[in-house]
């Protein structure tokens, strides 16, 4: 499993790991807004990183949990998954 992570998957992870409900279309549209504006805090992002690592069986970049926006996060983890694939 090394597919790219989509905004849909990120939205699903935000709900699962932190209980934050967000419409994928909105997440896409506001992908340069801070995670905090969606109600996701740093522990929530850390939980998402952990969940992705478990799903993909590979460590995420150490900076993943420090990303401020959905776009930054998706770019970083997807480049890492592509490089590792």
């Amino acid at each position, binding site marked *: 499993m090394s597919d790219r992570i989509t905004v849909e998957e990120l939205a699903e992870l935000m709900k699962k790991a*932190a*209980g*934050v409900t967000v419409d994928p279309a909105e997440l896409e549209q506001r992908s340069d807004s801070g995670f905090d504006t969606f*109600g996701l805090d740093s*522990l929530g992002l*850390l939980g998402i990183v*952990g969940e992705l*690592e*478990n799903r993909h069986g590979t460590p995420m970049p150490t900076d993943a949990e420090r990303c401020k926006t959905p776009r930054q996060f998706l770019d970083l983890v997807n480049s890492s998954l592509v490089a590792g694939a």
Partner: protein
Amino acid sequence: MSEPTPRRAAVTGIGVIAPNGLSTDAFWKATREGISVLGRITREGCDHLPLRVAGEVRAFEPATAVEERFLVQTDRFTHFAMAAADSALEDARLGQSATDEAPFSVGVVTAAGSGGGEFGQRELQQLWGKGSRFVGPYQSIAWFYAASTGQISIRRGFKGPCSVVAADEAGGLDALAHAARAVRRGTDVIVAGSTEAPLAPYSMVCQLGYPELSTEGDPDRAYRPFTSAACGFVPAEGGAMLVVEDEDTARERGAAVRAVVAGHAATFTGASCWEASREGLARAIDGALAEAGCAPEEVDVVFADALGVPDADRAEALAIADALGRHGRRVPVTAPKTGIGRGYCAAPVLDAAAAVLAMEYGVIPPTPNIFDICHDLDLVTTRARAAELRTALVLSRGLMGSNSALVLRRGATGAP
């Protein structure tokens, strides 16, 4: 220039999530009627344990009380705290827009005895069942004693002084006193109290080590303090949050001043040293009365700690006599917690809530399930007693040796 009048800490709102009611009204009606809701523990994974009777909060639906992210990120004890804080703020008519205008004027103080045991157990089961990579990051804060203070302040946007009292069961009263001190020092509003959720398998196993715990299986006989049949205490979940507010600020915005937090003192006499708690509790009462400027004869009702252990009950009866003198044998004493159980830090906060309501309605609620008292106390049993109440004394002791006393005076406004 004249000295400014010292600020006084008023109670302007009460929010309750208790085994006998999910609102202050329901709690008060059941408490006044002396209805016992102690029952066999029904929570999942608990039915094989020797602790069988408790005061459970059965109808509470966390999903209707708090937003989804708090369901995922916090424990049941914090869900109770958020729901009770919402009710207390609504009762005080402090809406979100009012507190948003002055966020630094509002703080939170809670006390917690067991923290988020259910959440912690779930994550620890992940740790040992699947491995460390399956433990969620919210475990780092959800189990913690400070969680409810932090999450209430985050959720409501409060930026005033926040704290947590970790001082045994009596910490519930200490939290109210701490809130009153913060108000006297200049913060306008403190949301203060305690809620607990100790009825989950891990938390219950922790409690089994307490020699004071009742393992009696008959709910009507499991918790009978001040009687010769006393066999320990029954635990409970739930609790209460109060809005403690500067009296003048409250009056200026037209809020009802329900009561004034007039005096408090705390002492320590060692874990399970119940004989020594006599002196400790008496000294706490002395200190609380002195701070309140209250003579012993002015105390109209005592809400007892009522542990249900013979040595502890004797020590409490003697402490009341030591501190109040001859008045100690005449003053009505009650322990409504025999009908709902003892919710650790939350127990004395529920007693403080009941004391405020008792003063407002001029009624002393009874002590359920208690008949033949074997101490020299005027314990109110069977049914409520009408009485003009201006001053209430609330007592609490912790299993680890803390003793606290709180003096509440009736507010100027009458029954709501």
